[in-house]
């Protein structure tokens, strides 16, 4: 306790001193627009020449208050595997993120437990923590014929280092019943989203996270507390977490039944809706990608992209520069964490002729990312109608994204062609 107080005092002190320093720099004469802004130094803003931004993901079915459904990550500008917090994708159910004061926030764990417990944010910070790099991907992230850019088609995935407590630590603290096979958990936002998760996964590697890339989680990503379910569709990773209930069956909560289950297609006799868990092996070339331009005519270019899989680490990535006839193994640029974005590069000599470039991911379980035609065959749907609502699991879509290159070097979405 004493330590904490001391730390606070130091921080206050630190801020005051920072103010003075900044003041004197300013007095020395602001020459560039960078120096004239306190933000650039006190809270490291970026160069005014860097303009990469998220864009709104507009969905007519979520037009409540005219607000958009979410924000998409500019993958075309991405470097390495970590998404800056300001650019992490976010989905919202038609309202703004709640404005939660962490001092008032509490997490209740109850249901089939020996002790129903309440944790404050300070309590959670006293528990053993882990930091892990994991991607998140919305189940609706998929190649789209109509989306010209990789941001529009694949911008609902990002990757960060998450810090927090393992859910298993909290479950043990509360003493869960041996007959409890599921947990359900709920966010504090206006819509109070609920999700069911098998106990097996909850005890395995699920995190209750408060940190994102070295700072508190951003409001649109769940401040002050969220669930992080590695490798599962991001809809499992409930934001603004306030309650965990230990139960003996899946609950099929409102949002689950509304949009987050695979429902039997019209052509099927089946009537039972089911959950999807892991994202399949997936990759996408982030550059050159739709609406970019090979500026220098024929010659060498760096093909770069991201690969990931809910099934574990990415084992290798293959790239084709001739519309899928020949595949070559790409270089893996950096770390290959489990259930994390993995950066691949491949140097390519473009001869100036029109072609299609594409990548496919093979994960450590040897699962291979499917082509559009393989994907359609698997779901028993017309490949020319992908993605479609008729396709069971239309959200759960990991087929290969090709980019077409024109003779003039312009790049376009050729998903419908290949």
């Amino acid at each position, binding site marked *: 306790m004493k330590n904490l107080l001391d730390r606070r005092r130091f921080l206050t002190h630190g801020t005051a001193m920072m103010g003075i320093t900044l003041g004197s720099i300013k007095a020395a004469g602001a020459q560039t627009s960078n120096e004239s802004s306190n933000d650039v130094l006190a809270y490291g803003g970026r160069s005014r020449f860097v303009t990469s931004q998220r864009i709104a993901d507009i969905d007519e*079915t979520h037009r409540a208050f005219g607000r958009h459904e979410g924000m998409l990550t500019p993958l075309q500008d991405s470097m390495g595997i970590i998404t800056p917090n300001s650019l992490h994708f976010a989905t919202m159910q038609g309202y703004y993120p709640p*404005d939660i004061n962490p001092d008032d926030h509490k997490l209740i764990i109850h249901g089939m437990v020996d002790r129903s417990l309440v944790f404050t944010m300070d309590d959670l910070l006293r528990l053993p923590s882990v930091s892990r790099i994991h991607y998140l991907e919305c189940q609706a992230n998929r190649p789209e014929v109509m989306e010209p850019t990789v941001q529009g088609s694949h911008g609902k995935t990002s990757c960060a280092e998450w810090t927090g407590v393992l859910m298993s*630590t909290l479950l043990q603290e509360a003493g869960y019943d041996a007959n409890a096979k599921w947990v359900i958990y709920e966010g504090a936002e206006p*819509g109070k989203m609920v999700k069911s998760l098998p106990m097996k996964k909850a005890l395995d590697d699920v995190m209750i996270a408060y940190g994102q890339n070295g700072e508190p989680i951003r409001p649109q990503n769940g401040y002050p507390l969220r669930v992080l379910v590695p490798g599962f569709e991001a809809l499992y990773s409930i934001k603004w977490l306030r309650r965990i209930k230990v139960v003996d069956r899946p609950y099929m909560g409102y949002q689950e039944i*509304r949009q987050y289950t695979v429902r039997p297609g019209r052509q099927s006799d089946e009537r039972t809706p089911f959950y999807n868990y892991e994202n399949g092996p997936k990759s996408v070339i982030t550059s050159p990608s739709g609406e970019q331009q090979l500026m220098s005519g024929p010659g060498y270019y760096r093909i770069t992209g991201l690969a990931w899989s809910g099934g574990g680490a990415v084992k290798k990535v293959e790239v084709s520069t001739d519309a899928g006839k020949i595949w070559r193994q790409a270089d893996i640029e950096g770390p290959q964490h489990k259930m994390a974005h993995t950066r691949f590069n491949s140097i390519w000599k473009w001869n100036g002729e029109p072609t299609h470039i594409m990548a496919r991911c093979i994960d450590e379980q040897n699962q291979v990312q499917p082509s559009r035609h393989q994907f359609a065959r698997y779901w028993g749907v017309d490949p020319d109608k992908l993605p479609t609502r008729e396709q069971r699991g239309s959200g759960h879509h990991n087929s290969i994204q090709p980019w077409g290159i024109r003779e003039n070097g312009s790049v376009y979405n050729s998903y419908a062609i290949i």
Partner: protein
Amino acid sequence: MRVRLAAFTLLVLFGWHLSASGQGLQYEIGRSATQEEISDWDKTLDPAGKEIPEGKGTAVQGKIMYQESCESCHGENGINGSAPELTGYLRIYPIHTWDKIYRTMPLGTSGAGERDIKLSPDETYSLTAYILYLNGMAAENDILHKQNLPAVRIPDPDFIR
């Protein structure tokens, strides 16, 4: 390990309840939750509908409440509002409509996401009855209650978006 087993036997002898997984308090962090704070939040419904609170209501009663506290967002008769339409898009089981209304409506629009008004079970039955009525699935004066709500089925499940 031997120490743990011994402790286990002792607890059983003294009639303590210990879950089979044998977990005990490890860090003693977090305080006990009170029954009130649990029931204030614990409004999710099990799929069989056993956890729905007792209560009842009719579409006639629901209509009045709807006009007062829902119409501003969902529109007259559940259409053409800024919020999702309430006709034509009913979600598989009406129990989920009940759940959504009881837990989250009328939607909180500011601050930490809490609502200004919280509905009683009776009000929720009435509002659900009114939405069923708008969808042609209940008559004006049908009384909706704990026993008949889980049994209501949407005629054609494929009709659901």
